[in-house]
């Protein structure tokens, strides 16, 4: 189930050079589709939980290569494999003229393998292996267009920021090992606050939550299907998956911190999303915001709501990203919202799928986000502040989703490229349509019980459902009316807008702050090194010089003195043999 993507990656890496672009795509997509089929086959045979040990790995308690299917594993596995397969299929069309398809599909397959590992690993160590692989693959994929300096810088940034979280993760992992004596995820009791918070920091970095979210907006430099993969099905949801799987064994402090940070992130990122002018950056900030909501859900113990929103988000965000990619494909890579528009008439299918994704994002009924956001709101009902944050985020989400649709689909074309927009090929449209349908229907299917995901376990007050519908409708309606005319009537400029557009300065603050800290540290280290290391080296040099000066006396150039030394040596040897050895 896990292995086909790995096999695909290895196959592509080893002998992809001999194959054509089309073969790369077919192998890459086929491997993921195979693992999706295997997942379905396993699940249709019943047994929604189970474990399998593939072999020993590290001689630690809980260090074996063991996979386990817990109650989160089945839906997540299906979603990861399914959405990734669609994205891979779409990539065949999107990268039809790209030279790096071998690299791309190999990294894509490896990525899916790593993500499945995170979902299915039975111990923290194996999970961490997947975790790191995901980080590596995201670096490779974000930097796919490596000749662009911006892409290379973005990849580096994603990697470095993730490293911060990974260090915390490793330390947390060791803390768990020391405290509990095993890394296995099964039957774990409570973790200490220290270990919990460290693991949480790891999750924050991977899931792009405050304050480690800064890599995600920049990660938009990668090809759009990669953005869909990273932001919808995989990577960023890894942190949520970790929180879900660790679940209640985390300490209350860490869970509380997760929900508060999630709420702040959700709100701030939604505000930032509202004022971006770059199509993909709107989606990036909206991802950060939506994952914030999942953290709220996971933090207050509403595992079902968080999982539901994770899956719903995967569908509608993938639909949105692939739609955005299709739009860019049809308009010579135009991604400035102010220069797009009029897609509704020229790219009907793309526009429909994009709008379906937006409906999901805006949480309008019957979109996927409606049911899942309401589940989170219901779970947060008895915490007024969190509830207010969730509802406000929902309002903002509806607003920026409406703004997106208005600018891209409804507004008059803003540039010659947008006027010449042409529909994409079927290989891109089929996955797009599938994801659009899922974005519209998934929420209802779960709510009606057609897809057995689980149940609400929180009882929401009766007023909540109507209120959230009204909030979403009001936001969407206002947004559509306000922004339909096009970018001329965008959000009013002002200090608040520029602050939000730059993500409230967190990025700049962290980057300059980090740089300054590192520079200070570096200077201090350098002077220490000069004092100690250089002094030691000098000492060695001085000693050698002194010794050489002594030895050099014997080489005085007089043949007769050499001769005398030779004789003296011979005499000494003779004396030793005749007197000493006895």
């Amino acid at each position, binding site marked *: 189930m896990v292995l086909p993507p790995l096999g695909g990656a290895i196959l592509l890496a080893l002998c992809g050079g001999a194959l054509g672009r089309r073969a790369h795509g077919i192998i890459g997509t086929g491997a993921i589709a195979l693992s999706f089929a295997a997942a379905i086959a396993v699940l249709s045979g019943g047994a929604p939980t189970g474990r399998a040990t593939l072999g020993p790995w590290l001689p630690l308690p809980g260090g074996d290569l063991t996979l386990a299917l817990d109650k989160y594993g089945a839906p997540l596995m299906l979603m990861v494999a399914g959405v990734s397969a669609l994205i891979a299929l779409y990539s065949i069309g999107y990268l039809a003229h790209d030279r790096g398809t071998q690299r791309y599909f190999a990294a894509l397959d490896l990525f899916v393998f790593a993500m499945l590992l995170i979902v299915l690993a039975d111990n923290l160590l194996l999970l961490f292996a997947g975790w790191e692989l995901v980080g590596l693959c995201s670096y490779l994929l974000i930097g796919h267009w490596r000749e662009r300096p911006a892409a290379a810088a973005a990849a580096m940034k994603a990697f470095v920021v993730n490293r911060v979280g990974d260090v915390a993760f490793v330390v947390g992992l060791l803390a768990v090992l020391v405290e509990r004596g095993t890394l296995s995820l099964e039957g774990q009791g409570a973790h200490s606050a220290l270990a919990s918070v460290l693991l949480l920091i790891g999750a924050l970095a991977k899931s792009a939550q405050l304050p480690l979210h800064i890599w995600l907006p920049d990660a938009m430099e990668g090809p759009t299907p990669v953005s869909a993969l990273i932001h919808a099905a995989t990577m960023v949801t890894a942190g949520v998956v970790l929180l879900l799987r660790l679940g209640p064994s985390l300490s209350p402090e860490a869970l509380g911190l997760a929900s508060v940070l999630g709420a702040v992130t959700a709100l701030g990122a939604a505000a930032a999303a509202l004022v971006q002018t770059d199509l993909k950056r709107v989606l990036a900030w909206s991802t950060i915001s939506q994952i914030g909501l999942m953290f709220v859900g996971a933090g207050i113990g509403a595992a079902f709501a968080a999982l539901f929103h994770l899956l719903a988000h995967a569908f509608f965000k993938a639909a949105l990203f692939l739609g955005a990619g299709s739009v860019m494909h049809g308009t010579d890579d135009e991604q400035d919202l102010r220069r797009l528009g009029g897609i509704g008439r020229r790219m009907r299918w793309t526009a429909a799928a994009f709008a379906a994704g937006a409906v999901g994002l805006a949480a309008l009924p019957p979109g996927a986000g409606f049911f899942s956001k309401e589940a989170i709101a219901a779970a947060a009902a008895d915490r007024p502040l969190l509830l207010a944050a969730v509802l406000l985020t929902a309002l903002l989400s509806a607003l920026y989703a409406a703004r997106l649709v208005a600018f891209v689909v409804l507004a008059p074309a803003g540039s010659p490229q947008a006027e010449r927009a042409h529909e994409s090929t079927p290989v891109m449209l089929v996955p797009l349509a599938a994801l659009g349908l899922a974005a519209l229907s998934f929420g209802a299917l779960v709510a009606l019980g057609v897809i057995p995901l689980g149940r609400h376990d929180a009882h929401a007050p009766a007023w909540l459902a109507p209120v959230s519908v009204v909030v979403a409708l009001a936001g969407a309606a206002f947004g559509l009316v306000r922004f339909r005319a096009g970018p001329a009537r965008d959000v009013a400029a002002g200090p608040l807008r520029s602050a939000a557009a730059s993500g409230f300065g967190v990025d700049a603050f962290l980057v300059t702050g980090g740089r300054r800290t590192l520079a200070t540290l570096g200077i201090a280290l350098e002077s220490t090194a000069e004092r100690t290391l250089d002094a030691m080296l000098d000492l060695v040099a001085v000693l050698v010089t002194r010794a050489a000066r002594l030895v*050099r006396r014997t*080489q*005085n*150039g*007089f*043949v*007769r003195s050499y*001769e*005398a030394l030779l*004789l003296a040596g011979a005499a000494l040897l003779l004396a030793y043999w005749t007197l000493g050895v006895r």
Partner: protein
Amino acid sequence: MPTVAYLLLGALLFSLGAAGIVLRTNALSMLIAVELMLNAVNLTFVAASRHFHATDGVAVAFFVIAVAAAEVAVGLAIVIDLARRHTVVDVDQASELKG
């Protein structure tokens, strides 16, 4: 004659040669002193060979004679070069190779 007498004579000749090398500064004299030492060794070998009724020592003595011939050839070449460079063959003046 007892073997000890040959050995004593050999040791005497060897010491004379060694002293000659260290004390004389003339390159030619030093070559002669080297020759003296080599033949002292030869004498010792041959005496031992006779003492033990074995031919090994004689064989080595022949070998030493051959090496001595080669050594003289090289040594004389060096002496001639020395004479060309310094007009005298005083080894103490040829100390350019000091470290």
